[in-house]
């Protein structure tokens, strides 16, 4: 049964066809316990020179056999049963079904094997039998009369990736708060917030500002939740700039990079981020600015002795409104007496 048919166009395959000789290369995908490619085609009875190049950070072997996936299960169990002898034998068990094999190949290294392709057309599986790898590290060697006539199809055995539908996190009636790494946003401490109604933003807990906003869907975390995790997630929806630089809230002196500390966040109602800037404890919450690509920030703090500044980039955003203060060259200056609770709205300017 073909669960998923996919046509793989492998440059290596073409190369082998063009050269006339049967030089075949199989690699490994880094960190995924997968071969690359997962399907190769060879000519019936041809002399094959196979290079196995291990681009992963773990040790792998390679074994081509006659039989089906159950035969591979069997070989994997036999390899496991080698126990302490396995390392010496490269976890290649003795079995009549094996056509060719390459023992353990260290990360970053490669090894070769030459063998004669079977004289019988058909599919011959290949597998890594290092303990634990055989479930996902599998491929198919197709043996045919004329490789150039073959349309490649493979049922890709992708390991299950959890319960989220394709990794999409949606926002319902209550806000979502999820720590993520996004592609192109260089902060290890980013927190995505999805608000009901479709406004979303990313708060950078290291640099204490909103990095970006977006309207529409929330996020896709598929790459963080499969394989080894930690993969870069993506924003769903239409992104807009927040026009913000690190540490936009300044106490007293707007030109001085402040001493800061992130304190955490509340998830009662609209998420509120708590942090400290030059010893002043600040609470920041954010909502969308209606009918525009914009955000409204609410800042709360105790009664201040010094003026508070909010910095923004006037080339990227315009200050749509604020409940207090005067704007001057990309800075909103809020007088100390009014700083305990104020709102600022920015609207993203069209980017050239």
């Amino acid at each position, binding site marked *: 049964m073909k669960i998923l048919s996919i046509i793989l166009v492998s440059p290596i395959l073409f190369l082998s066809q063009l050269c006339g000789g049967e030089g075949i290369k199989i690699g490994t995908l*880094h*960190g995924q*316990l997968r071969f690359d490619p997962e399907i190769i085609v060879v000519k019936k009875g041809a002399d094959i020179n196979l290079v196995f190049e291990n681009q992963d*950070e773990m*040790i792998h072997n390679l074994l081509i056999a006659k039989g089906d996936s*159950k*035969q591979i*299960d*069997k070989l994997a*169990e036999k390899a*496991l049963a080698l*126990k*302490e002898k*396995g*390392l010496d034998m490269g976890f290649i068990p003795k079995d009549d079904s094996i056509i060719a094999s390459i023992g353990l190949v*260290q*990360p*970053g290294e490669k090894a070769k094997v030459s063998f004669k392709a079977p004289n019988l057309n058909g599919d011959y599986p290949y597998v890594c039998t*290092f*303990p*634990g*790898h055989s*479930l*996902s*590290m599998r491929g198919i060697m197709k043996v045919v009369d004329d490789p150039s006539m073959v349309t490649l199809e493979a049922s890709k055995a992708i*390991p*299950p*990736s*959890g*319960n*989220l539908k394709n990794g999409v996190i949606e926002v319902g009636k209550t806000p*979502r*708060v*999820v*720590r*993520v*790494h996004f592609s192109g946003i260089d*902060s*290890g*401490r980013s*927190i995505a917030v999805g608000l009901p109604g479709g406004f979303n933003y990313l708060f950078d*807990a*290291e640099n204490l500002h909103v990095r970006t906003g977006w309207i529409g869907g929330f996020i896709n975390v598929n*790459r*963080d*939740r*499969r*394989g*080894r*995790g*930690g*993969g*870069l997630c993506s924003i769903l929806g239409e992104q807009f700039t927040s026009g913000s630089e690190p540490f936009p809230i300044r106490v007293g002196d707007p030109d001085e990079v402040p001493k800061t500390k*992130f*304190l*955490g*966040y*509340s*998830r*009662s109602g609209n998420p509120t981020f708590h942090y400290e800037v030059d010893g002043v404890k600040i609470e920041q919450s954010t909502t969308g600015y209606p009918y525009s690509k914009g955000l409204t920030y609410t800042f709360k703090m105790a009664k201040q002795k010094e003026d508070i500044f909010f910095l923004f980039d006037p080339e990227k955003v315009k200050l749509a409104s604020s409940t207090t203060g005067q704007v001057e060259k990309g800075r909103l200056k809020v007088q100390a007496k009014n700083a305990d609770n104020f709102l600022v709205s920015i609207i993203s300017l069209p980017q050239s």
Partner: protein
Amino acid sequence: MKKIFSALCILFLNFYSSGQGKPDRIPNGYSVQTINTPAEVSFGVGGMEFAPNGDLYVCTREGDVWQYETQKKVWSLFADGLHEALGIWIDSKSSTVFVIQRGEITQLIDSDKDGNADFYKTINADWGVTDNYHEYAFGLVRDSKGNFYGTLNTSLSWPGWARSEKWNIGRVWTTGYPDTDGKMGRATKYRGWGFQITPEGKFVPFASGMRSPAGIGISKDDELFFTDNQGDWEASSSLHHIVKGRFHGHPSSLMDHPDYEGKELNEIPIEEYEKRWSPPAVWIPHGELANSPGEPIFDYSGGKFGPFEGQMFIGDQSRSNIMRVSLDKVGGEYQGVIFDFINRLQTGCIRHVFDKDGSLWVGQTGRGWGSAGGKEYGLQKVMWDGNTLPFSVHDVKLEPNGFRVAFTKPVNRMLAKDSNNFQVDRWGYHYHPRYGSPKVGNVKLVPKKVTVSKDAKSVFLEMSLEKNRVYKFNFQKIQTQENESLVNHFAWYTLNRLKSPS
């Protein structure tokens, strides 16, 4: 053809039965129960702890914290949106929940007591973290003085695959060794360190030289241990005793060590690193016993978990087995012996916690590195029946001129007094920047003399001793007086120091 087909079917069934039913090897008196995890939820266990009311809290790689009422068998979500939470600690008096995630230690506060955390309070975030996916933060233990401890993975240094531009920082291969890509590095501060967070919340870099320190454990005397994985600079998987100031072998972390400020680590000869290096207390021979060891946990069940009170248990993420360690303090330092205990559970074992009944809960994740069993995640419980004494090697202790091996039951004297029934392999490892080490100086030994104790529960193996070696004993031929054989007949003793005659 039909015959072949049915033979294949049997093999197929065996394959599954070994994964989901009774493990292939489990000592008599022990059993395994599989706990249902929340339906339709990806549940890669990152940490487990019991609250004082008996509820189990589990934090996951997917960033959730789940609460489990063990009597009612009901799961509820306590917190979510964390960044790969790989450790949890709960105050046994106040029930306060702390987790460690990539970027920080967080206190999860449920101020309105509705069962959901509503304030995520940052306790400390003073280590560096980038978008390099390998920068895991593992934990979480707390000592009796209120200090937290955790361990920080090195950064992956592999172009294109670190998922980060910050891959080529702090790779150390030192003089005389080739610069290859497969090294771990240090993309930001304190990668490769074990750290302490004081009760005041201050970050203290505590011990360096860690590579992939996936599990940390603490004894009742506040002694800290962590496990590391084989790789560059790490000859094999291993268990280390953490002491403040100690260097555990991987040099990338030394970028943040005051002694190496401004120095080019690749120009420092390997001898200097080796001199600074504290070898592991116990080698966990890679590929033979474990590939990716997780959290070490001590059995303080008071005998409710069988005859191994005070010993340590460690699960492995690749082989899905549970191992047992008996430490031996020699010359003021820990070394000791490791055994296989259960081989294997349904998937990769990484986190462990004992409940008040003395059962060992095993948190599992099979995602990312290939775990025997193949399940993506799971939760299982190992129980002792309180009655059946399994025939096991209880411990192996070093003496000045050999090893004293203690069994849980009296052994057959005829078998035990024959020194040919004790086959021993001995080897060492290289300390080098390469990925893992082959066994070095492997020799086969037979004890010069065997003495069986009066009660027949221990044997003394007199033999030549060499330090910085692993001794692997095969006790397959030893039986009880009722002809019972050992379920796990190998023992690996790490001899770092010789014992001087007292």
